């Protein structure tokens, strides 16, 4: 690898990191604003015009709050928990292809940090690591509510990872590859995977809600039963990290859903665009559209949060084990049969 390539990669990493942090920051603002709109209210509007400086004010507040580590908490793990949560949230974006390859002069810039051939497995690995941040934090707090929240988070994430994995297998039968770049390329134009895998997408969407601990699956931090859930004992920026990790996770899982099912950076008439407006313009339009799709998904996450009440815990387990997993297996079987019949 040449030095220029390494520098380009480094810049790309910094940009993606900055983008995911800024999006997470403004997701908190968007969430409060959207919550207000869904409830016929105005939302934050005092900090700056329309309240757009609200995330900065919130961040400043978080930093200036007193740092509390409970006496009986396990000091080291108490700090490891939120660090792990935010770290796993941030590294997920490494394998997502944000666009086709840009060509500047003789340089070809790949808009993906790492095109590894097991991209999906990497995402899954990161997702399953994510639960450790919650578990360690909840356990290290030495508090009943935190522990219960952590246990709930762990069992919920593990249960829903199964059906998530199974729904992906059906997709892999269609695409025949684990590399996210190749999956994105296969959806060229309008051949989006949602057309071939609608059931798989709905299963994946439901599991994504559960994996990111978003409503209606936000039982780990269910205020009515568990005070604050796994982050009951956290204050200051450590709490901020947990909340931030949730929003970054939301962004990343939206990006994964767009990449896997909604055509990534592809859009109809992209060849026409490339021919008439220049290849780079078409690529950049693709990136913009990818982000537009991601924002739509983030909007959907928030829309659902302000619509559906939380599940009861046994209902959550029933849905995961008795409904989603059989459905996912049936989806695999049907997909397999159809593919075999077509290829004969």
């Amino acid at each position, binding site marked *: 690898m040449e030095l220029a390539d390494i520098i380009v990669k480094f810049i790309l990493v910094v940009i993606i990191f900055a983008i995911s942090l800024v999006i997470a920051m403004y997701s908190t603002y968007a969430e409060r604003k959207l919550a207000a*709109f869904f409830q*016929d*209210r*105005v939302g934050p509007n005092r900090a700056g015009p329309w309240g757009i400086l609200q995330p900065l004010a919130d961040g400043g507040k978080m930093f200036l709050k007193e740092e509390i580590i409970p006496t009986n908490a396990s000091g080291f793990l108490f700090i490891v928990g939120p660090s792990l949560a935010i770290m796993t949230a941030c590294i997920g974006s490494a394998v997502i292809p944000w666009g086709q390859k840009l060509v500047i002069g003789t340089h070809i810039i790949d808009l993906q940090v790492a095109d590894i051939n097991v991209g999906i497995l990497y995402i899954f690995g990161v997702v399953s690591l994510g639960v450790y941040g919650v578990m360690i934090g909840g356990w290290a707090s030495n508090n009943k509510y935190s522990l219960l929240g952590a246990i709930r988070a762990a069992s919920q994430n593990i249960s829903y990872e199964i059906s998530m994995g199974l729904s992906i297998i059906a997709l892999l039968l269609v695409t025949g590859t684990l590399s996210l770049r190749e999956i994105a390329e296969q959806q060229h134009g309008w051949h989006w995977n949602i057309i071939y895998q609608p059931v798989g997408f709905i299963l994946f969407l439901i599991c994504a809600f559960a994996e990111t601990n978003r409503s209606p699956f936000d039982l780990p931090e269910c205020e009515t039963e568990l005070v604050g859930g796994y982050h009951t004992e956290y204050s200051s920026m450590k709490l901020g990290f947990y909340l931030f990790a949730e929003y970054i996770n939301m962004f990343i899982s939206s990006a994964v859903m767009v990449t896997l099912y909604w055509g990534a950076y592809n859009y109809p008439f992209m060849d026409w665009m490339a021919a008439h407006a220049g290849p780079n313009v078409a690529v950049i339009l693709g990136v913009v559209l990818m982000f537009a799709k991601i924002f739509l998904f983030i909007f959907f996450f928030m829309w*659902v949060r302000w*619509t*559906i009440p939380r599940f009861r815990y046994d209902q959550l387990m029933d849905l995961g084990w008795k409904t989603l997993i059989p459905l996912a297996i049936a989806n695999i079987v049907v997909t397999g049969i159809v593919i075999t019949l077509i290829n004969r």
Partner: protein
Amino acid sequence: MEPLSNKRKEVNNKPLTLLERAYLPAIAQGLAITMKHFWKKPVTIAYPEEKREFSENFRGMHSLKRDENGKERCTACGLCALSCPAEAITMIAAERQPGEENLYREEKYAAVYEINMLRCIFCGLCEEACPKEAIYLDGDIVPSDYLRKDFIYGKDKLVEAPLNQ
């Protein structure tokens, strides 16, 4: 039996149909409802920049009135304090001195007149009790403050501004 209202609704324990158990149509219905609200105009009134319109007989902060010559009407008879169910009004009377005729209408006036706005229930009985038409609750909402003592309003806040010459 004759139903008392048209709001009566039969309930039953019929098992859910497959469509109902699928749950997703119900979610779509819910999403449609929240989307409808998304486009609605907010009902918020951004007090203190905006204010809800008060009714004509709204009872707000008290004001001690002056007569057409700019003299204070209050004669410190104490009927308002007597009528006050919350015992919010206190006053100290004083005798008008020669040369003060342009300030006070009667020979007796209130040297100190205090209303505790935290005690006041804005019932308007002081207004009704006053024989001199000196007190009216025609002001605005009492503003908020930090200390209890700042809610005891004296004559400086209650008496109407003097007439312009």
